[in-house]
């Protein structure tokens, strides 16, 4: 089934409710036309109404059939085209089709209405070659047909836009949730708590210190999605918290070095940008390695470019194969960089080139802080 409410209602799977929605508007328009004609020409209202309904609904049926028919035909011919669920083949097809529908519908509707009412009405003019009356009626009918079609077109477009906005909002919320989930990875959280539980019994001051780290990390994680930027100093503090928590867990297997030059402390970066990279290094590089290793985070300035590197001396990338880019952490870092800096920022993951082995992640950001 189609996803958006519009296309669901307009698709042929729900013909009854679709016909009912269309009919409501069609009948309303016909009532208006009948009233207008009664005022204009002074005929009896009910006769005008029968004519108006017969002609109007026939025209509407023709237009709508054409709209769906042409749309389906176009889509069959061109299956690659984007389907926005509107069922709209374009004005260049619809305007001629509306004119054809008006001509056919007017003729057919007049004949039926004349039969129903037993009158030889004004509308016989078409058959009687009364061109003057026809010249008054026709533009009105065409204008109403175009107007009603435009109304359906605009309504469809509005509904599609709304559905797109909804979908975008949903995607954003889902992403936030996934971001949070990836940072509060249950395995990490429960292992940390298990360690805390042991420390409370054996080394309360150390337990307290660990708890402080955990609190700072959780606070940063929960507000990371809300704040736009924080300083590089704050970023490194949060990384230090995370590495310290992991250090308690891994013991001597994890060594770390965080290197932030004094001059770069006040530059701003998106919060917890590097955390997924550090987490990857630990999770995929160091944790699987029996003897563990070193994690190193550095910041360096090169003109107007800020270079941030995260490297480990772990098991390294699976050899001979491209880096797995499907992990949510990396995808998320890339997306944030692209959103905030466009093509000016980059993230490269590669095997570390020196003899210590492991993986090296390099982020390049433009420095846009005028104060430095």
């Amino acid at each position, binding site marked *: 089934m189609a996803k958006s409410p519009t296309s669901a209602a307009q698709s042929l799977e729900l013909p009854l409710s679709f016909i009912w929605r269309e009919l409501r508007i069609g009948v309303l328009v016909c009532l208006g036309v009948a009233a207008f004609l009664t005022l204009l020409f002074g005929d009896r209202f009910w006769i005008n109404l029968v004519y108006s309904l017969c002609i109007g609904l026939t025209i509407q049926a023709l237009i709508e059939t054409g709209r769906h028919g042409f749309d389906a035909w176009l889509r069959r011919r061109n299956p690659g085209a984007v389907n926005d669920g509107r069922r709209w083949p374009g004005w260049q097809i619809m305007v001629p089709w509306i004119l054809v529908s008006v001509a056919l519908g007017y003729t057919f509707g007049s004949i039926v209405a004349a039969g129903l009412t037993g009158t030889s009405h004004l509308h016989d003019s078409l058959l009687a070659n009364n061109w003057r009356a026809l010249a008054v009626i026709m533009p009105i009918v065409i204008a109403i047909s175009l107007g009603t079609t435009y109304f359906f077109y605009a309504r469809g477009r509005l509904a599609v836009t709304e559905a797109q906005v909804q979908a975008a909002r949903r995607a954003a919320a889902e992403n936030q949730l996934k971001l949070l989930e990836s940072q509060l990875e249950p395995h990490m959280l*429960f*292992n940390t708590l298990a*360690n805390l539980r042991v420390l409370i019994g054996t080394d309360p001051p150390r337990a307290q210190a660990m708890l402080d780290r955990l609190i700072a990390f959780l606070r940063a994680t929960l507000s990371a999605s809300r704040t736009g930027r924080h300083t590089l100093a704050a970023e490194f503090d949060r990384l230090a918290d995370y590495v310290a928590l992991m250090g308690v867990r891994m013991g001597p297997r994890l060594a770390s070095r965080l290197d932030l030059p004094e001059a770069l402390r006040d530059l701003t970066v998106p919060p917890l940008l590097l955390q997924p990279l550090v987490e990857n290094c630990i999770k995929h590089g160091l944790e699987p390695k029996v003897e563990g290793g070193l994690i190193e985070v550095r910041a360096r300035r090169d003109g107007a470019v800020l270079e941030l590197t995260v490297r480990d001396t772990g098991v390294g990338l699976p050899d001979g194969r491209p880096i797995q880019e499907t992990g949510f952490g990396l995808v998320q870092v890339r997306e944030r960089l692209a959103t905030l800096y466009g093509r000016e920022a980059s993230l490269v993951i590669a095997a570390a080139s020196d003899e210590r082995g492991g993986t090296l992640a390099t982020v390049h950001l433009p420095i846009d802080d005028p104060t430095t």
Partner: protein
Amino acid sequence: MSDTPPLRALIAEDEPLLAAGLQADLAALWPELQIAAVVGDGASAVEHALALKPQVCFLDIRMPGLSGLEAAQALAEDWPASAPFPLVVFVTAYDQYALQAFDAQAVDYLVKPVDRPRLAACIARLQARLADRTPKTDALQQSVDQLRALLGATAPAAMQRLEVVQAQVGAVVHLVPVGEVIYFEAADKYVRVITADREHLIRLSLKELLPQLDPQAFWQVHRSTVVQARCITTARRDESGKVYLSLRGRPETLTASRLYAHLFKGM
């Protein structure tokens, strides 16, 4: 009961504090239990368990090198018939998938952080099982059943099927249709690909290869062997429960471990 051997346990846990914590809690709740070894990775767990023959093993699931599940699998395959197989308790921080599979036939399964009452319940269960153990009761068989369920639960989802194995030798790549492969054998970080007349090495672990093979056609019969079913001519079982397979087109016999012996039953 005077000549009962001392009760010994092995703890395999890569986080030192948690290992120490478990050791301390066990000492408090089950003082008769000696901790024979505390190790931090799966390979050491296997090595020490085989050497020390403890009655109980606490295995963390996520460990460097071999995981707890793989370590238990290795133990089940290499355990000598002379000693009773240890009761295995798995420990993990968060692995729901295994929990479900485990429900059916657990010796036990602990979720970290482990509180004292939960650990006490685990100890009671272990004690009951140990007391119940007539000399030849099959803890091994129970562990084997349990592991089979766990390994099944953790099996990776089916990937795209491999049609042709590509083995590189220098600048030449040999293409071997999967149907011609008689068996695959893990060799360190490589897999040996054996056909009727040739042998190739591919840079891929058996674990990575397995989901790409059709499980109907290729049977895992050992933690390091996957064989094409239609190439097996006979399966002969010995008294220890191991099964020996002879092959069509190859002179050697393969060993199917106890874990996979159930594949070979008369119809």
